[in-house]
């Protein structure tokens, strides 16, 4: 389980991460989506005890990242977005090295490593030098490495980025297998559809803030043209509330913070929206303004779905 509480990170005046709150249940897969520079890697580095937060904190399986970093490391398998490998080390030696770094005895490693190599389809490459492997293979080897101490929680920073489509599919199959093994997985991507299929929940991060969170279907519904509408009246706001509530395309209706305003999410077409406005006026709702709010979300969605067909 991962619990992130009010987590912030500032570099000088620049806020890379802004009061992030997140709860990821045991055994679930959470997709962390945001364009480049949104703050994904910053979040992951903090969770992996590699970077100190400016404020806020987080727990991995109940262990605090600041007070019990060593216990956190034991719980956590971490795969960074960019990583290097030691040259002159064979794939099998690479895994032995990290296994030993977690204090796993040799006899146990000798049983474990072939299984891990099998899992990531690299059994045939066990005696190849790591720096000579293809990017996809290195990525999979690094994934195997992050599993070596059998961590309950996996944090994978863009494991599919920079891979060709075939390698991407291969990676996705492995991740599905990990999900079936019951691991809690936090995985990031700058492309939403890449994660859609395999995540239970998606969180969308933009400029260090979580701007949306929900199941894949919820997020996709928002993607398919929902809009936020604000209505101002000069009297009888309650009448407006009961009128708009009756429309089947309206949801999440709320009285606004300002007096005599209300807001709701609308998922009808443009034509339906125009009919709705006409009916409202006929019904003597004292409308002074009826406007669609440009949410930041839309821009974000445009970015993270750019150039890909939604499934």
């Amino acid at each position, binding site marked *: 389980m991962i619990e992130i509480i009010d987590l912030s990170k500032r570099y000088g005046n620049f806020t890379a991460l802004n009061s992030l709150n997140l709860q990821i249940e045991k055994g679930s897969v959470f997709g962390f989506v945001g364009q480049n520079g949104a703050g994904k890697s910053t979040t992951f580095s903090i969770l992996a005890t590699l970077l100190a937060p400016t404020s806020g904190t987080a727990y991995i399986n109940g262990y605090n990242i600041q007070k019990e970093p060593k216990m956190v*490391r034991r719980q*956590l398998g971490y795969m960074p977005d960019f990583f290097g490998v030691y040259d*002159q080390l064979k794939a099998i030696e690479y895994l032995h090295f990290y296994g030993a770094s977690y204090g796993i005895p040799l006899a146990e490693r000798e049983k474990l490593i072939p299984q891990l190599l099998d899992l990531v389809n690299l059994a045939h490459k066990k005696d190849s030098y790591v720096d000579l492997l293809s990017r996809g293979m290195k990525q999979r080897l690094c994934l195997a490495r992050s599993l070596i101490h059998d961590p309950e929680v996996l944090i994978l920073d863009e494991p599919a980025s920079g891979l060709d489509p075939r390698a991407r599919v291969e990676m996705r199959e492995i991740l599905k297998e990990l999900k079936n093994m019951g691991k809690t997985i936090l995985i990031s991507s700058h492309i939403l559809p890449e994660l859609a299929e395999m995540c239970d929940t998606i969180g969308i991060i933009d400029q260090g803030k979580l701007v949306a969170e929900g199941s894949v279907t919820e997020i996709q519904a928002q993607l398919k043209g929902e809009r936020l509408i604000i209505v101002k009246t000069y009297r009888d706001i309650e009448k407006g509330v009961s009128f708009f509530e009756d429309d089947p395309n309206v949801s999440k209706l709320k009285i606004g913070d300002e007096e005599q305003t209300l807001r709701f999410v609308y998922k009808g077409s443009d034509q339906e929206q125009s009919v709705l406005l006409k009916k409202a006026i006929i019904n003597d709702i004292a409308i002074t303004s009826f406007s669609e709010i440009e949410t930041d979300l839309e821009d974000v969605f445009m970015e993270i779905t750019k150039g890909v067909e939604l499934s």
Partner: protein
Amino acid sequence: MKNFVINPVLNKEFKLRFRSFKSFLGILFYLLALGLIIVGFVFIESLSNTTGFFKPDQSRTIFIMLSFLQLALILFITPGLTAGVISSERERQTLNILLTTTQSSASIVLSKLISSLSYLLLLIVASLPLYSFVFLFGGISPGQVLITISFYMFTMLVFGSLGVLFSTLIRKTIVSMVTTYGVTLFLAGGTAFLTIIFMQFANRYGYSATPSTNPLPYFTAMLNPAIILFSTFEPDFIRELTTNTGIKFPLWISYLISYTVIFIAAILLSIKKLRPNMKKG
């Protein structure tokens, strides 16, 4: 202790270093160079020598010469071997992953230090047979050889710990190297220079009516490995220093103490700074 001997970092570094052919070429060339110097020296000596025999005091001269040569080599190579151990992993993006393992910072720092110095140690051990003339021709006691080797190992550890420290504190290997070489140059050359300057002061004021003492040169001399090495051969050499400074405490013990303090401070600081302090961002 067992944990430390089978330490994964140590293990891997040994594997990598001794797997490369370059390492063996290095040893070969080093021994060749030292051998040539000895042969050359013996050759020149025997030319100017009327008897044509090699005498104990000449064997002693070779020994002292070789000892300084090896010290220079140690001071020259140690920064190169150690000043990149952490920063180069950072540059090659392998450090992050290593730091997310449960290996303790102390274990990582110490095994990095030891593994990087092991090669230098190997060079020195491999050169031991060249010292056999000492036993053939005399002039130096085997005990002196032992002292010299121990002195090397100690000095190597201290300068190596400085390299590891700068490598931990400084992001770029190149900057870390320059810093480590700078500090090494100061400790090996700068302190000798200062000692000479301070001694001049002492001499000048020595002519006044009351014999005055100036303790300054003592403190620069005790930091200089070359002066310490020389003092193990020529105890007379520091007698002047003792009279000038008025400090009778053995210089080499001061060296041991001050360098041990430097070593411990450098190692502790490296261990502390290897991973970020998660409590303050």
